[in-house]
C-alpha cells in the first residue's frame, strides 16, 4: 500500500509537469468553461440552471477520453511498462495508478467548476448535493474506464487519437451538454444514449437538479455505472495480457 501511494504521488506530480496533461485536464476545459459559460448564460439563460453539470461533463470527458489514452500508449510502446515490470512494479499497479491519478485531477477540475459556476455565471445549484456528487464520481469512474480501454487497445498514438475523437465528439454533440438533446432527431438521440456523457446529463438533471427531461435519472446512473464496470474489466483483462509474453 505504501508503495502504491508513493507511486500515486509521483504520478500526480509527473502529470502536473506534463504540459499535454495540464492542457487536457485543466487548461482547455477551464478555458472552454469560462468562454462557453459566458456565451450560454447570455444566449439562453435557462442553461444556467445546469451549467455546472454540463461544463463538468465536458471537462471530464475531455480529460479522460482525450488526455488519458496517450500516456498509456506511450507507457506500453516506449518500454516504460517493461522497465517497471523488471523493477518489481506490477502491470496492475501501473493501470490503477494511471486511473486513480486521472480521477484526482478530474475531481479537482470538477470541484473548481462546481464552486465557481454560481459565482461567475449565477449558475443554478443542485437540489440534491449528495446525488450531484454521486453522479459526478460515477461519471468520472466511467469516463476513466473509457480512457483506459482506449489506451490499452490502441496500437499507436494515431489510433488512440482516432478512437478518442470517436468517443469525444459524439459525447459533446449528442449528450445534451451543448444544446438540448430534445432538439436532436430520434436516431441521433438513440446513438447518443450509448455514451456515458448522455447518461451523466440525464442523471445530473434528473436526480441532482430535479429538472425533468422525461428520463429516469436513477436508471441513467445505473447504466453509466454498468458501462464503466464492464469497460474497466475489459481494460484490466487486456492490460494484463500485454505482460504475459510481450
Amino acid at each position, binding site marked *: 500500500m*505504501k*508503495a502504491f501511494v*508513493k*507511486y500515486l504521488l*509521483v504520478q500526480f*506530480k*509527473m502529470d502536473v*509537469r*506534463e504540459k499535454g496533461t495540464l492542457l487536457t485536464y485543466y487548461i482547455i476545459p477551464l478555458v472552454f468553461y469560462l468562454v462557453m459559460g459566458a456565451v450560454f448564460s447570455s444566449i439562453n439563460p435557462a442553461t444556467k440552471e445546469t451549467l455546472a453539470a454540463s461544463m463538468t461533463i465536458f471537462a471530464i470527458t475531455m480529460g479522460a477520453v482525450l488526455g488519458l489514452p496517450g*500516456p498509456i500508449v*506511450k*507507457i506500453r510502446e*516506449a*518500454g*516504460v511498462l*517493461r*522497465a517497471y*515490470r*523488471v*523493477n*518489481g*512494479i506490477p502491470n496492475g499497479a501501473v493501470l490503477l495508478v494511471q486511473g486513480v491519478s486521472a480521477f484526482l485531477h478530474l475531481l479537482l477540475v470538477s470541484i473548481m467548476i462546481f464552486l465557481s459556476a454560481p459565482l461567475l455565471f449565477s449558475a443554478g445549484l443542485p437540489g440534491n448535493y449528495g446525488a450531484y456528487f454521486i453522479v459526478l464520481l460515477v461519471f468520472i469512474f466511467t469516463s476513466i474506464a473509457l480512457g483506459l480501454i482506449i489506451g490499452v487497445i490502441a496500437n499507436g498514438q494515431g489510433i488512440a487519437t482516432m478512437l478518442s475523437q470517436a468517443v469525444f465528439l459524439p459525447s459533446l454533440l449528442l449528450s445534451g451538454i451543448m444544446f438540448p438533446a430534445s432538439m436532436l432527431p430520434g436516431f441521433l438521440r438513440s446513438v447518443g444514449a450509448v455514451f456515458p456523457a448522455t447518461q451523466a446529463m440525464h442523471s445530473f438533471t434528473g436526480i441532482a437538479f430535479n429538472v425533468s427531461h422525461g428520463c429516469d435519472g436513477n436508471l441513467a446512473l445505473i447504466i453509466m455505472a454498468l458501462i464503466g464496470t464492464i469497460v474497466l474489466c475489459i481494460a484490466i483483462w487486456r492490460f494484463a495480457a500485454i505482460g*504475459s*509474453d*510481450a
Partner: protein
Amino acid sequence: MAGAEVLVKGLVKKYGNLTAVNEISFAVQKGEVFGLLGPNGAGKTTTLECLEAIRKPDNGQMRIAGYDPHTDVRDIRKKLGVQLQSSSLPDSMRTDEAMALVCAWHGRGMRLDLLIRFGLEASLKKQYHTLSTGQRRRLHLALALAHDPEVIILDEPTAGLDVQGRAQLHDAIRELKTSGVTVLLATHDMAEAEALCDRLAILIQGKIAVIGTPAQVTATGSSDTRILIRTLNGILLPGYDIGSARFIRESEGYGEWVSSDAAASLTEILRKVQLAGDVVEDLRVQRPSLEERFLELIKGGC
C-alpha cells in the same frame, strides 16, 4: 550444473515458425560474470527475456538462485536485477523519484548511495528526458541494484555510451563481481567480453556454438599465431615462407607471417635477419583474439 546460481537447460523459444532459441543449456556459478555473445538475432536477448520472465519459453528449464522465473515470480524479483536492452521511464520522472519508486516497491528505503555511486548525484532533480544516454543507462543499472540482487542481467549495457561512460560501467560491473553478485552480460563488444567475463558463450542462430573462458573460446578456433616484423634494411621483403611460418602479406614495411609453432618460427625468422646482417626495428607476436574467433564462427555459420 548442480549448485549453479543461474541454470538454463534445453531452453527453446519460437516466434511462429522461427526458432529464436534452440535447446540451449548453460550454468553460471555464484559470483561469476558470464557473457552471452552473438550477432544480431542470435537469441541473446530472447534467452535473457525468458530468464527475466518477460517471455514464456516453449520448452526447457530455468532456475535463478534456485527459483523458477515463471512460477516463483515474487521470489525472483527479490533475487534478480535487470537492465533491459531497450527500456524507458516516463519523460517527466525525476532521477530521485525513479529510485524512490523502485525502492518503495522493493520495500526498501531510498538508495541515494547507488545514485551517488553511479555519478548521478548532480542529476537527482533532472527529468528523465533531459538525461544523456549514459546517465539513463547508469540510472537503469542503479535501479536494477536497488534491492541488492544476487543475480543481475545486463543486456548490452554499454551500447551507445562514450568511452568514459563505458569505462565507468565496466568498473561498476567489476565492483559487482567483487561483492559476489552473479552477472549475466549480453554484449556485442568482444573487448568488453574479454575484459569482464569469467566465462562466455557464443550464440549463433539460437544455438550455443562455443562456451568456456575467453581463452578457451579463443583457443577452440585457429591456433595460428601472427608474427609481424620490420627490419632496418627490409631483408625479409618481399616476403616468403620461412620454415613453418607462412607469409601472409607486406604492409608499411612490415612482413606478416602466421604459424602454428610460434617459437620455432620466430627463432628461424630472427636467425635469417641476423645472418643477413639486418637489424630488427619492430617485432609483434599476436595470439588470435576473441573477435577473430567470433568472426570465424559467424563465417562458418556455427
